[in-house]
């Protein structure tokens, strides 16, 4: 059993890199008191704009910048409605997801060449993995718990009345999330697959939200949760390879079942940021 897991771990880490970036981004916004259900649409948009940017500039770096810009655009729309107009965050997030699904589907069907980018060099791929699993967590941990900015950002999520310029902290949190999710979306379409496909995020945003809860809104929890999920979800390939007769289509449901179990098994009595969603 240990052998199987040790074998699955490297693949799981690479495959869950976009997910981890999403988890880290959502962790920051939820600490600031925002539930961004639109993260799914944000990642989907980033996956597409990354491909568009890479195709027009012929550079992987430009692709990642394109992904970040796409995610920032979605963050801007979300924040105008959810922060500026104080709209219900779940309603806004749902609208954002529909918007992204519609727009990306629209562009995709208008030019079908989006599924044909040359794949990234391995060095660049591993650099992103390293950034997601080591660099970002370190930066986030320091930022959230050792700086004045982080303290105020967390206070915006716990007790907004005590903070001046709550909106500014929430806007910044969303911007940080957009950068992380943008990189994640770009990694998904440029590294993990060879281009964009309709609805290719396949619920990663929602899985990320679940892992944030599982990880108790902590950076360490986010990493452990994502790794656990990655290994468990990777079991579908192991099971497939062992061909013990579980039908392929049911194996496809494994990641979502695992997420449900994660939510149920560990949500239990957790304390969310006090003013989350308000």
């Amino acid at each position, binding site marked *: 059993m240990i052998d199987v897991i040790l074998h699955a771990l490297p693949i799981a880490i690479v495959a869950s890199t976009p997910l981890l970036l999403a988890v880290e981004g959502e962790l920051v916004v939820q600490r600031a008191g925002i539930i961004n259900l639109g993260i799914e649409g944000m990642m989907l948009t980033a996956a597409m704009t990354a491909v568009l940017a890479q195709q027009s500039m012929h550079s992987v770096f430009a692709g990642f910048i394109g992904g970040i810009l796409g995610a920032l655009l979605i963050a801007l729309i979300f924040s105008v409605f959810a922060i500026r107009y104080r*709209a219900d965050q779940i309603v806004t997030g749902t609208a954002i997801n529909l918007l992204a699904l519609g727009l990306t589907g629209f562009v995709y069907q208008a030019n079908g060449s989006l599924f044909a980018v040359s794949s990234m060099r391995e060095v660049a791929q591993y650099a992103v993995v390293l950034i997601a699993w080591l660099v970002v967590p370190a930066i986030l941990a320091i930022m959230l718990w050792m700086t004045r900015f982080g303290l105020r950002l967390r206070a915006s999520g716990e007790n907004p009345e005590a903070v001046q310029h709550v909106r500014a902290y929430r806007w910044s949190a969303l911007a940080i999330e957009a950068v992380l999710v943008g990189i994640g979306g770009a990694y998904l379409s440029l590294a993990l697959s060879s281009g964009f496909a309709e609805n290719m995020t396949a619920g990663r945003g929602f899985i990320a939200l679940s892992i944030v809860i599982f990880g108790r809104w902590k950076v360490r929890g986010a990493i452990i949760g994502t790794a656990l999920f990655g290994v468990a979800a990777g079991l579908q390939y192991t099971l497939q390879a062992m061909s013990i007769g579980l039908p392929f*289509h049911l194996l496809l449901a494994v990641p979502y079942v695992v997420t449900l179990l994660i939510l149920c098994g560990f949500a*239990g009595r957790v304390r969310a940021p006090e003013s989350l969603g308000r």
Partner: protein
Amino acid sequence: MRQIAAAVAAVVLLSLSALAFGRSPIELLNILITGSIGSRFALEGTLLKSVPLLLTGLSVALAFRAGVWNIGGEGQFIVGAIAAIAAARFGVIASLVAAMLAGALWASIATAMRLWRNAPEVLTTILLNFIAIHLLGWCVNGPLQERGAQYPQTDVAASALPQVSELHAGVLLALLASLATWFLLYRTMEGLRLRATGFNARAAKWAGIDVNRQLVRAMAISGALAGLAGGIELLGVTHRLFERFAAGYGYSGIAVALLAQLHPLATIASAIFFGALVTGAGELQRSAGISSNVAAFGQAVVILVLILFGSWRTRD
């Protein structure tokens, strides 16, 4: 009033998107309108699309009224249809009852997780959608695949809803469901308790209402409505199951319910509007080559414009 303004704004924005394709917005608007209400055939298409939208819209409206975030309409729609085809040989009524039960049970998984493990239903219902989609994929490629196993689809269901030209009896059932939901919410004690729970759960608890019980009930009824939508779509329109059966009706129900301000009777008008939008978008795809995904875009625009006009803001 602002609902109508939001609907108009969505249509205008959709037409303006024609500029992105170097076409005239007027031409696009024309296709959208003639494609949805311009002929008897188009009108029937619009009505047929409104039926599942009305039911999933009611499902969302009832859940949101009770303060429960049921985003799982898509999954409940699918398991409803799977149950309906499995029970079709016992007749139409048995089949529809099975659809409602399956939808209610599927939604109740999320309730159970919420009550026992404190897992937020907004996430569990969404995750259950993905599981239902793969369950459907397994069914049409495995146990329920058609004889001959040529395509990933089921055989034609053993029973069907009675129909007059293209319109099936599900139209009446959906209207009845809308009246029944209105009656439940606004003319019964249980409905008052349910709305009180959604309006302010803490106050409802102080007033002696069993909040958890309202949650269980709202989720089950909401799931049953979405399941019924799946059953009616199967027995009235597609008659077969296939992988892309759900076509987003579950998620669209959210836009339908929000445009109707969560009112069961207003949901009828809202469902017809979105039914027309989906049908018109289909015509856009056929005659102008513009992706029918604009329908999802249109739904998003409606919700966002409603927010701009002052709906769905937190009141503090």
